[in-house]
């Protein structure tokens, strides 16, 4: 074979039977590339195209190209602004919230328990639970009459809160639920990070005279930074796409005080059947998510 490669030009038949490295790579990648195009590139392309049209399933008229009209509308749309702000607020509150709670859980799970599996399992359960289940469960927890939260508040001598009647308290309930649901995911990533820190560093710090808090600040946090970065980016991207929890708990209310961008997209496309405007909203969400994904990729590359 080596002789043939070095020798005379090859025929079509031999090229098919014995392709070069580049050709072979292309052939092997082709099925995956086709599949990716089908399930990612085509829908995204279609979405972007639709965002420049007035496609609406209620009018019955064929879609017409309207340029950036849908995007101009957004600037005047108070609900869009509200849902964008809600999305940002949820991201700003639940991402750091889940990080702090997750770090606490991870440090707890990293303690030298004799039996480790109940601790790990209790970490995994909230993570494995579907988001909509968590939403339903917490909707009951925060129920103004029968909810456990108000029950505890009353037993402690406080007045119960009508959680879902007040824009502020509804947002608080949604954020608490999201933090509970997502802290375990953050905890799992951070636990993996914690386990890579050698015990001897803490022993060295013990001998060096550093107390527990100092060890946490000077050793744990700096060495956990890569894991924290990964957890933060993943959590931020999913927080920007928040849908299930507020949908199950408040349906976006009262008013649109807990409506997120993803919910507003759902409302426009599924409820109002306004696919043109809904697609334009989806493109905005896509771009925001892309921005964070690019940031994530850059950080990963910088680390590598």
């Amino acid at each position, binding site marked *: 074979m080596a002789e043939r490669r070095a020798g005379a030009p090859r025929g079509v038949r031999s090229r098919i039977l014995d392709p070069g490295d580049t050709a072979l790579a292309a052939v092997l990648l082709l099925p995956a590339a086709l599949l990716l195009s089908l399930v990612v590139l085509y829908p995204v392309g279609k979405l972007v195209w639709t965002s420049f049209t007035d496609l609406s399933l209620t009018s019955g008229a064929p879609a017409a190209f309207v340029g950036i009209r849908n995007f101009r509308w957004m600037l005047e749309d108070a609900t869009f602004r509200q849902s964008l702000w809600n999305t940002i607020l949820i991201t700003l509150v639940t991402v750091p919230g889940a990080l702090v709670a997750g770090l606490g859980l991870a440090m707890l799970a990293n303690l030298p328990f004799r039996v480790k599996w109940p601790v790990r399992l209790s970490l995994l359960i909230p993570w494995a639970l579907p988001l909509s289940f968590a939403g339903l469960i917490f909707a009951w927890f925060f129920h103004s009459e029968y909810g456990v939260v108000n029950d505890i508040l009353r037993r402690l001598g406080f007045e119960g809160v009508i959680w879902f009647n007040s824009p502020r308290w509804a947002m608080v309930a949604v954020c608490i639920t999201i933090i509970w649901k997502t802290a375990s995911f953050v905890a799992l990533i951070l636990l993996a990070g914690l386990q890579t820190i050698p015990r*001897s560093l803490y022993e*060295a710090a*013990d*001998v*060096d*005279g550093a107390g527990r808090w100092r060890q946490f600040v000077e050793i744990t946090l700096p060495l956990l930074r890569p894991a924290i970065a990964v957890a933060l980016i993943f959590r931020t991207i999913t927080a920007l796409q928040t849908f299930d929890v507020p949908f199950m708990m408040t349906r976006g209310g009262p008013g649109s005080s807990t409506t997120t961008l993803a919910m507003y997209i759902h409302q426009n496309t599924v409820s109002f059947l306004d696919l043109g405007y809904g697609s334009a909203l989806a493109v905005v969400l896509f771009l925001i998510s892309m921005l964070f994904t690019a940031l994530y990729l850059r950080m990963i590359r910088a680390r590598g």
Partner: protein
Amino acid sequence: MIAGLESISSGEVLIGGRVVNDLPPRERDVAMVFQDYALYPHKTVFENMAFSLRVRGARKDEIRPRVQEAAAMLGIDALLDRRPAQLSGGQRQRVAMGRAIVRRPQVFLFDEPLSNLDAKLRGQVRAEIKKLHQALGTTTVYVTHDQVEAMTMADRIVIMRDGVIEQDGTPEQVYNQPASTFVGGFIGAPAMNFLTVTLDGGAARLGPQALPLCPRNAAIAARHQGAAILGIRPEHFRPEPGPHPLAGTVQIVEPLGSDTLLHIGTEGGTVTARLPPDTRASAGQRIQLGVDIAKAHLFDAATGRVLA
């Protein structure tokens, strides 16, 4: 236990006359050099060395000269801005020592500090540690599995087995008067040879062969009957048979240049003899070697403790 990283179940640990059992590591005034160095990977060499002083509240203008002094002593003053990942094994080892020196503690604790270095570097750093110890004069507890390190560096060796002290003494004592077969086998390379013998009226029997003993061992043998272990160091064999020959068959010949090692099969088991480099022998050859019997040791066959 000395550093305070493990709890003490019984007994007392005293440092400078003070019982430290209940003191946390930071209050024991012990500086430790870890087997894996345990350098903080995100801190520079300077920060690693300065850390203990910083957490103890030392002033900046006090920290810098002390770190620089220790770094100069160890020849790592050009590396102060680097991180541990940018250093070689030997350099990391020096930084770990520097971190301990900066503290000026009452006691240094070295936990197998050379085990991660290659043989050449190990010899070099071993000499440096010894020089450093002579310069500082600080009490140093040096944990090692390497008998060469133990012999060359210690003023006093404590040999432990399964958490129990087997023998405590100067290097000469543990070499010349091993308290047990474990100590005899641990100190010295190649290890001490152990032959199972039968004590009979002041002589040691090795199968049909009788090995007359020196007066000291003969007196011991007279007090004990039956099976015993005769310990002979490889260097206590002589090429000429002399008055106390040991017969056997040469199995392996190892010429080392400085001397020649013979592995010989005898009635009591295989022994290794360290002989002059010009010794001529070949595998399979029957040989008779002299034994410097005054330097042999008798141990209890059951407990391994030296017979008295």
